[in-house]
């Protein structure tokens, strides 16, 4: 079925969202065109309306949203004027959707293959054997291991990247004309992301399928999209061929997105160590998570700990802070041995080590106002109360570049970036010597993340605090770290100065990790996959 021409035509789409009883326009007249077999990348920060537009391509508006104008023409028919039953016939078979979180998408109680077959059965395709064969084909095509038996597993028995690919297979079950990918790799590690990206690309290249690819990562969309549309606050900023957009961005905003990488600082030498970890092992129940870790954290500098999820880097943070007692090994902080758990540490020791969590949403008590959250460490450690505490809270908020008026708000009334700044303010309220940052920027948009990183390095310049920066983002490492530790499966596999690790990695795994970081180059993924297949 090779029919050329326009598949999806969105004209002046307007969508309103309700907040606090009022309707506000969140998509303000966006138009786009998608030909058969073409991939259009939608890119922008959160709140740009890209997911809302993606869902509109399925004729769907989230609860609390409504279409207020424009057309979404799929093969010339307006989805916004179709009845629910007509839409249901299109969705799943002709238009498919791939969500960000595969874990939330699958029913954990059914085998993958059964869930695949169900999609086809719902749309009246009842030949089980044929459906299963089709699943096998797609699994193979997406590079899943052992495609014949892969479907027999339950969702929890496969890795996150594999599950994401299984979801893409389900989206392709009905040979759709259009697939909407909504941030399909955002939750994945760089090394896993490469596999899924390759799968997405082979999915769209091998067929006549067109795709909308939604992401906030320009380097990712550069690998898959033919054209890219940049969105901001519900409006189109610009649209161009991928190559053109990357080489000669027309708008200031696009240029800022392209250069949103943090500025690179020079590596600094250190004198003395603040934290010495010797032969540390820890486990959750019977499962060993950290095995014989020895790390020296230089005083007044930034050390980055990198590794994929499951490498034990967050567990290491829990052990250092005392949330998890180690099995063996010693921790020395500023010369003194640290207690195993928080109970065995003096209040003063607890104050000197602060942890900033990855998810500010769960790190701030939703029922406490910002002023209470920031005031508590002041009261607890310094006995500051009342007026004096209020003054210090205002100063802390200013220090993290927030308006002191925000003190009166609950965390739910703040944006993601603001919440993370509050978490940072809470950590510095204790005036610690060591701040452990556990993936503090991974949930944030690139421009917001850049602001947070700048803030942290400015604070280090002023106060000489030591940072332990846990991350999987090597771009951040390159920008801020002085020393780097690479972890894999609970062990340290490389530990050296930043430039030594990044420029001349000794370990194979480190090399692969560095190669997996998407580059702002249309051909990067091709080069990488070509190289890895040549290796095999």
């Amino acid at each position, binding site marked *: 079925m090779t029919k050329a021409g326009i598949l999806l035509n969105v004209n002046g789409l307007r969508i309103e969202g309700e907040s606090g009883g009022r309707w506000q326009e969140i998509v303000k007249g966006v138009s786009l065109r998608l030909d058969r077999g073409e991939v259009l990348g939608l890119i922008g920060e959160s709140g740009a309306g890209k997911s809302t537009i993606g869902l509109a391509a399925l004729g769907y508006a989230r609860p609390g949203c409504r279409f207020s104008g424009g057309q979404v023409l799929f093969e010339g028919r307006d989805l916004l004027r179709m009845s629910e039953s007509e839409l249901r016939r299109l969705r799943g078979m002709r238009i498919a959707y791939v969500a960000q979180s595969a874990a939330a998408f699958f029913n954990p109680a059914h085998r993958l293959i059964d869930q695949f077959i169900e999609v086809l059965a719902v749309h009246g395709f009842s030949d089980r054997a044929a459906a299963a064969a089709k699943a096998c084909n797609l699994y193979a095509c997406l590079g899943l291991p052992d495609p014949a038996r892969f479907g027999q597993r339950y969702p929890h028995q496969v890795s996150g990247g594999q599950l994401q690919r299984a979801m893409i297979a389900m989206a392709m079950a009905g040979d759709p004309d259009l697939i909407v990918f909504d941030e399909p790799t955002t939750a994945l590690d760089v090394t896993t992301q490469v596999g899924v990206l390759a799968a997405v690309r082979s999915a769209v290249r091998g067929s006549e399928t067109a795709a909308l690819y939604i992401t906030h990562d320009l380097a990712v969309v550069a690998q898959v999209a033919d054209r890219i549309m940049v969105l901001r606050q519900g409006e189109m900023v610009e649209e161009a061929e991928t190559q053109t957009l990357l080489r000669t961005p027309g708008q200031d905003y696009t240029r800022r997105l392209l250069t949103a990488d943090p500025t690179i600082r020079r590596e600094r030498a250190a004198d003395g160590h603040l934290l010495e970890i010797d032969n540390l092992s820890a486990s959750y129940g019977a499962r060993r998570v950290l095995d014989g870790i020895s790390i020296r954290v230089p005083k007044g500098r930034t050390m980055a700990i990198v590794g994929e999820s499951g490498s034990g880097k967050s567990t290491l943070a829990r052990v250092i802070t005392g*949330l998890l007692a180690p099995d063996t090994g010693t921790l020395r902080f500023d010369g003194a041995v640290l207690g195993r758990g928080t109970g065995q540490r003096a209040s003063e020791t607890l104050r000197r080590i602060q942890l900033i*969590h990855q998810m500010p949403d*769960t790190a701030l008590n939703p*029922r406490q106002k910002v002023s209470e959250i920031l005031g508590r460490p002041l009261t607890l450690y310094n006995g500051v109360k009342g007026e004096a505490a209020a003054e210090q809270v205002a100063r802390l908020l200013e220090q993290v570049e927030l308006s002191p008026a925000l003190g009166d708000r609950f965390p739910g009334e703040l944006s993601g970036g603001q919440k993370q700044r509050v978490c940072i303010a809470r950590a510095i309220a204790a005036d610690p010597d060591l701040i452990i940052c556990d993936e503090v920027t991974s949930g944030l948009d690139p421009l917001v993340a850049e602001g947070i990183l700048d803030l942290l390095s400015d604070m280090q310049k002023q106060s000489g605090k030591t940072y332990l920066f846990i991350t999987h983002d090597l771009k951040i490492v390159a920008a801020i770290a002085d020393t780097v530790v690479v972890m894999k499966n609970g062990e340290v596999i490389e530990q050296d100065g930043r430039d030594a690790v990044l420029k001349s990695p000794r370990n194979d795994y480190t090399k692969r990790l560095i190669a997996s970081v998407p580059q702002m180059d249309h051909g990067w993924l091709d080069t990488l996959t070509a190289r890895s297949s040549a290796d095999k």
Partner: protein
Amino acid sequence: MLLPKEPSMTVLARGSAVSSATGGRLSPKWLKALAAAPLSAKLGLFIVIFYVGLALLAPWISPYGEAEIVGPQFSAWSSEFLLGTDNLGRDMLTRLIFGARNTVGIAFAATLLAFAVGGTLGIFSAVAGGWPDHLLSRTVDVLMAIPQLIFSMFLLTIFGMSIPVLIVVIALVDSTRVFRLARALAMNVTVMDYIDVARLRGESWLWIMRREILPNILSPLVAEFGLRFCFVFLMISALSFLGLGIQPPTADWGSMVRDNATLITYGDISPLLPAAAIAVLTIGINYVVDWFLDKSSGLREGQ
């Protein structure tokens, strides 16, 4: 006198109030919410307030004394005895009004105690984990394995019947259910990073339970309070019906049904009036609780 800036005072206020510390500023908001409440909630509130009013004003609004014998036994409804008299010749209306006072008061005290004990232990269990959690949870399992009514009768027989014992026994039996709920709710909160943060700050268990967890699980607990209150109410009535609850001559709806049950054989519905009073209050409370649940869970109408 009470300086609002004084931190300990605001802490107390916040701990007890359903909403947040700024109760004064929020009160117009509550009035507005009340005005916007659905009809069922308004009806429920009206019923509850009506009952509380009856209970508080019983001695002044009832036509006769609580245990006063004022006429012949089982006399029919008349202008003298609006709802007739009971098996001893006491005025039914009077005893219905006093019954509200006794039964509702005891039910409220018992429910409050059940929530204080069960809620505290449940949250503690979730925060402490490990063997304290095991010990408490298994004890509760054992208590829950014994049928509620039979267990209460058993305890009341051992310790003898008096109002304080009745309250404590009912609270104890009911606190097991509250414990399970509070523990399950608190478990969801203890995995949050802000609990880790509080631990890392070196906060005491009491602080973590009261300031970090309680405000986050308060709304389902309050909703459960309304439902539990109804169950306790029914339980007191059931115990009284069996002769183990509130003792004569104190008026009580449960025993009023039992004492006058023979009338039903003659086609007189008077014995059903106390039962109807119980039913109406139960419905009223549930309307209020439903409304509160809707408000606090953030589910809007029509979604």
